[in-house]
């Protein structure tokens, strides 16, 4: 008989429900299928990257270069297509570029031994720089029509956008792997105590390299989704997305120090972000208010647990 422990994630779930209720109450357009479709489209890229970022932060690392990777993958798709490659092939190139970016980060962290924060601040600039080099000042806008309909149309006979498919499949996969497989157990173990992990026969360096690689690949997938959604590949897309991703992951209950967090918490957080954004847009808030909300969420998700901890400590010292 397990006791029910109220965890951070439950708070996020409650928050999500309240946000939906408020949104529906304040705007008649909120609880419509069109708006649901919009919300999913709006957060698809963030959700896909957040899945991988969840693993990375649980394992005690971070990747600030994800938005630049996304953008470089998108630029690679556009560049390949502009230079005569079939669009299907161009997509594969985009995914490979994403993977390569992630592996470069992983190499610098695990083999060269640099802190991931510094590395990915550097590659944040580097990858975006490459996108500028690839495309120059000319975005690629003439993409094949049969592909870009996937970016704005719903799956036939449903109210769900096409991007639902990769999001749902990847989320299921990420959820199962994180919580029900050896890889998932290893991820937590590394984040809790990398040295003990090494002494437990866990291939720590290889795991971290793989996690960075997967994060790059997911950013590549997000890059393809992004390209289709905006029917364009440009060198200055997705600026600042890394902040949304990290805000969502931390708000979802993943500890920045690693070792703690659940995937459903992160998914609830991504959805919350989408719900708030759509509600605020429907209520004619500006984009600036959205920024404030993202920042506040991020701050709350680190300040609140610490404040609770401090209060608990104080209580303990009083009773003892």
């Amino acid at each position, binding site marked *: 008989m397990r006791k029910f422990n109220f965890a951070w994630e439950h708070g996020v779930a409650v928050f999500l429900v309240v946000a939906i209720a408020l949104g529906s109450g304040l705007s008649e357009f909120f609880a419509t299928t069109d708006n649901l479709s919009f919300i999913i489209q709006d957060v698809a890229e963030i959700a896909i990257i957040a899945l991988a970022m969840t693993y990375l932060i649980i394992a005690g690392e971070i990747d600030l270069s994800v938005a630049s990777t996304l953008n470089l993958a998108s630029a690679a798709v556009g560049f390949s297509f502009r230079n005569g490659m079939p669009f299907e092939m161009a997509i594969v190139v985009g995914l490979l570029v994403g993977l390569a970016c992630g592996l470069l980060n992983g190499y610098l962290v695990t083999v060269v031994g640099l802190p991931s924060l510094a590395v990915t601040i550097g590659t944040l600039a580097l990858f975006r720089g490459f996108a500028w080099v690839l495309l120059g000042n000319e975005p690629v806008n003439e993409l094949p029509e049969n592909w870009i309909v996937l970016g704005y149309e719903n799956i036939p006979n449903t109210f769900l956008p096409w991007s639902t498919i990769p999001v749902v499949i990847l989320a299921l996969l990420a959820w199962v792997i994180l919580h029900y497989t*050896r890889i998932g*157990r290893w991820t937590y173990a590394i984040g809790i*105590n990398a*040295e*003990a*992990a090494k*002494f*437990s*026969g866990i291939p720590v360096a290889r795991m971290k390299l793989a996690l960075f690689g997967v994060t790059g690949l997911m950013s590549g997938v997000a890059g393809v989704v992004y390209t289709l959604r905006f029917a364009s590949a440009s060198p200055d897309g997705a600026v600042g997305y890394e902040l949304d991703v990290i805000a969502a992951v931390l708000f979802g209950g993943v500890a920045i120090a690693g070792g703690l967090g659940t995937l459903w918490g992160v998914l609830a957080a991504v959805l919350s972000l989408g719900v708030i954004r759509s509600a605020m847009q429907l209520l004619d808030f500006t984009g600036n208010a959205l920024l404030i909300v993202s920042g506040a969420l991020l701050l709350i998700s680190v300040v609140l647990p610490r404040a609770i901890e401090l209060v608990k400590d104080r209580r303990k010292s009083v009773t003892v």
Partner: protein
Amino acid sequence: MAPSQKPVLEMRDAAKAFGGVQALKGAELTLYPGEIHALLGENGAGKSTLLKALAGVHKIDSGSITLNGKTFEQGSTRAARDQGIAVIYQEPSLFPDLTLAENVFVGRQLEKAGVVDWKSMEQQAKSLFDQLGVKLDPSIRARGLSIADQQIVEIAKALSIQATVIVMDEPTAALSSKEVDRLFKVARSLEAQGCAVVFVSHRLDEVFALCSRITIMRDGATVGTDLAKDLNEAKVIKLMVGREISELYPKLPAKIGDVVLSVDGLNLAGQFADISFEVRAGEILGLAGLVGSGRSEVVRAVFGVDKYDKGSVSLNGKKLRNGNAAANMNAGLALVPEDRRQQGLFMPTSIAKNSAVTMLKKLAKLFIVRAKSEAELAAEWGKVLQLKYADIQDPVDRLSGGNQQKVVLAKWLATEPKLLIVDEPTRGIDVGTKSEVHRLLSQKAQEGMAIIMVSSELPEVLGMADRVLVMREGRMVGEFDRKQATAEKVMAAATGVTK
């Protein structure tokens, strides 16, 4: 240091317990100005707890400490320093990016006209180094400084705050013989200046060469204090060991079989050299030696946590991978590491997950690992090892040290290793659990498992091992059969004293 002189420090009947373990009980220490005083005892005898009480890290539960005639204010490292006690650890923690001069004066940099006066700081640091007879450039950064030089910087710091008691906690463990000579000179000059120097070491030859008085501890109590000239090594060892060996260590007779592990010419620069040995099925091989002699480094390299430079390791005739613990674990190696909390366990994680972390591949069905199967595995092993716990999902940091060690043993025994390496398997655990662990190891050997046991506790090694290997300064220096091995012989080989 005539008895008529007033002591600078007196510790009377000190006691300290951690959880259920009585670390100190009836500990006594008297220090006079201008003496070098050795503090001896086996690991677990209570020396480090006593030192930590003096350093202000721990507060004793009962008893008294008097310093310079006043009651010593306990429990703060800052206060301990301000009262004149300085502790030089085996591995000091300096500020690697600051210069040596600033390291000496950190937090209280010398000032002139309200700004930091680098020149006089460097001059004073230089004169402190000179006073200690050591050539060190005060303007270089501390990063990359050898441990010997780091200790000198710490001693200079102690001098600059006019410490009256300077405690050196196994300062020679990681030093070369030349560095040891230099440290001795420094200690003697401190003695001449009227400091009371406490010197902790396992190397008895050093103790007799340097110290004027010796205090010996055993099981948390002081069992004797005497002038060095009235003692000899045999007497000291007897006082340190002091108990009947056989009762605690229920060694069962085991059939010794074929060679399981063979290590051939293993080398790792700066750690160990020319290490070759074999372990057979059913055999418990004791690996003895002082702290810092390279024992743990060898078993780490064998297991694959560290990479070795040269040599080979094979298990049942098959070569093992260098520096690949994951592969070696699958091949049948297991290591219960030295530092339980840092290396052995995931402290905030459940007993179930800790026990199962090595078994995930076998627990997985179609890649899926279920929490239930982890809990079952843990419960099963918990039963075998008589683990005491409230809930298998409780984090391991709620368990006592002994029970934590059982979880580490469980996670490795579950893999059914062909060779089990245990590094300090009973450090810091209570006597009852200790004998349980010994019985378990003995039983596993009887079942045919090959076991390497690294231990600093001589009685444990002598009581448990079929064969004892002794290391000193990174090399194998002795091998004794169970029958031949005595505390005196092993200690002599470990310290390099030939008598």
